[in-house]
């Protein structure tokens, strides 16, 4: 898991190497389960509008920025995540969120890379403006375990090259929750209960893992996961606000260009999943003193189709 294994992958058509297909299947299944069994308060209209707006915005962006091809996979993932997470009484808000998510990645960019995870940005704007809310408590245990298994299965099946950030975040976050419980003298049931949220899994497997908005190098991604964890825990236990990982991620996203500058790696391409380590020197060499070549490469990175996806 995590390493790009070119040998047997190269025998499959490029499309099947794309981990987003598995992610779409996983999110769709979860949405169906949520609608049919858990009675999520999201109407068919909201789902239609969210998906439709995301695809239209992606299409418009593709045309406007003259990308070679319209790729519906990324906007579908963003839109499905929004359907699972965002709750609102007003359909225009669902459309707005969907539009913000996709438009955000075309507009808010730094050195040819979008800064914010699309879903994360849309949720932050809608929640801050009081137009909608998230229900982090909406997941049952059954859904959670099923979802966890599906997500972990996804890592194995797709060998997602950049799953390291997911694993690092979960290790840091769960680990620190357990440390906190031990320090407080609380039973371990409490941290276990705290992580039993579908929203946390969506966050770990579909938001923070987004290879387009995480640092390019593995070391950078692990540092990033730690930063996000600390920010999330501060929001949760210092500010006493719900949806803490979401706020942690939005606060840390602007640091990605800095991390990329200090710890450069190669840019991600959906069709050729990589850990980002192919083109760079060993990490020990990179940390602290990035070579001029690497820094230049990082700054100039000009990339192929899919750079906006």
């Amino acid at each position, binding site marked *: 898991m995590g390493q790009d294994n070119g040998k047997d992958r190269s025998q499959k058509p490029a499309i099947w190497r794309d981990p987003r297909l598995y992610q779409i299947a996983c999110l769709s299944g979860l949405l169906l389960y949520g609608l049919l069994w858990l009675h999520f308060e999201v109407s068919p209209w909201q789902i239609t509008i969210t998906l439709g707006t995301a695809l239209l915005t992606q299409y418009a962006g593709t045309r406007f920025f003259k990308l070679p091809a319209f790729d519906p996979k990324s906007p579908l993932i963003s839109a499905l995540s929004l359907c699972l997470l965002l709750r609102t009484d007003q359909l225009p808000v669902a459309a707005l969120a969907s539009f913000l998510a996709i438009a955000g990645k075309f507009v808010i960019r730094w050195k040819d890379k979008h800064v914010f995870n699309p879903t994360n940005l849309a949720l932050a704007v809608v929640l801050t403006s009081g137009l909608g*809310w998230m229900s982090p408590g909406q997941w049952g245990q059954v859904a959670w375990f099923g979802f966890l298994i599906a997500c972990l299965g996804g890592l194995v099946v797709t060998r997602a090259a950049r799953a390291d950030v997911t694993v690092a975040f979960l290790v840091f976050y769960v680990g620190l929750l357990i440390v906190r419980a031990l320090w407080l003298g*609380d039973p371990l049931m409490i941290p276990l209960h705290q992580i039993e949220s579908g929203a946390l899994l969506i966050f770990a497997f579909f938001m923070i893992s987004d290879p387009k908005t995480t640092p390019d190098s593995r070391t950078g991604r692990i540092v990033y996961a730690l930063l996000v964890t600390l920010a999330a825990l501060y929001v949760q236990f210092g500010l006493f606000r719900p*949806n803490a990982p979401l706020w942690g991620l939005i606060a840390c996203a602007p640091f990605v260009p800095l991390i990329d500058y200090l710890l450069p790696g190669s840019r991600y391409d959906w069709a050729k999943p990589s850990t980002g380590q192919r083109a760079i020197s060993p990490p020990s060499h990179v940390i602290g003193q990035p070579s001029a070549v690497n820094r230049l490469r990082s700054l100039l990175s000009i990339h192929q189709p899919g750079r906006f996806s």
Partner: protein
Amino acid sequence: MKRIVATTFTLLIGLLAWNGDASAFCGFYVAKADTKLFNKASEVTIARHDNKTVITMANDFKGDVKEFAMVVPVPTILEKDQIHIGEAAVLKHLADYSAPRLVEYFDENPCRRYELFQDKMGALKNMAPASAELKRERDRALGVTIEAQYTVGEYDILILSARESNGLETWLSENGYKIPNGASAVLQSYLKQHMNFFVAKINLGEQAKLGLSHLRPLQIAFESPKFMLPIRLGTVNADGAQELFIYFLTKQGRVETTNYRTIRLPEAQEIPVYVKDRFGDFYRDLFTQQVKRESERGVFLEYAWDMNWCDPCAANPLSTEELRSLGVFWQETNGRIGKGMPMAQNVFLTRLHVRYDAAHFPEDLVFQETTDRSNFQARYILRHPWNGTDDCPAATAYRQQLRERQEKEAQTLANLTGWQISEIRKAMQLASGPLIEPKKWYERLWNN
């Protein structure tokens, strides 16, 4: 003598007798719910806006009132002015207003356009007459600081802080509080989270002077970003699950739990008419059934409504003055609009009902206010069949459909409550008389 810390050792204090003849604004009672419907029930009202919180606490403390005492973890040290005595009548009004309700419709004569409509409701209340006598003792030791002590109404109140839980536990024990085994770890956890403890006992002299036979609700007002309700102390050594009703008064919209699933109860279901006389049993069993379906981990929404109105009304909306007394500080007092109808603006009521124990609710309840202002009520429908003797094609069709409808009602009832379908069918036949057998398909075909 050791005083036993109130039944549940939780933040909830003696709720006053809620024997419910709820006022009937838009209808009348068809079923008076048993006041002991839910055992060990507590009621809390939380008015909150901008981190400013007013909690009104009541519980159903039963037993020897001499043993009554209450320990509540609170996020700040409370001044005397931040503690207040509430009015039981207002809490009762709030409970009535938001109670699950029964609505009654009468089928029209299918041969004539004619309709009757009536609203019925049943109030589900908790009770606990309690009077108490406690002797006050004080001590300082073991790292426990009495930050403040006040007498408010019939209550003696201490605000304690402590360096560590053993000291606090010993202090409480020496002062006559019987601490359940296992509470120490929970106290420790709260102390590390910078919580203080609000301890209330009864001042006998004051109670005698006031001449009250019951305990009035206690109110505290504070400002804190923590939007939560500490239930963990209440689950230590608790004998079985406990019921908690939480009423939220907020400005923006509905409140839900962020660390447990908040579920809407099934509503607007048509149930057999005979439930009219057993609405209390019906609702209690329905609730138990829903709790089971959620693996005993759910928090249930019973009511979410703008305080301006109701439909059907189980009781009048609360007046601006009543809401103020429950802590709605963001409202102006002159809130009457129209013909003397009390209108409270910018107040949204959420009523949550939770059955909790330590195994299924390990963590305190944490809430968030959403921007959802859509209305919800736990409402159940009775449809009285038309029993006329008129004959016309429409009446024939009606009688045929009635049987199917009643069967469906029976199944709905069985599904909601877990009652035996055979018992329900039996009861329905008793209640509604012999049912007409539907004609067979070939009889209908050739109109035999």
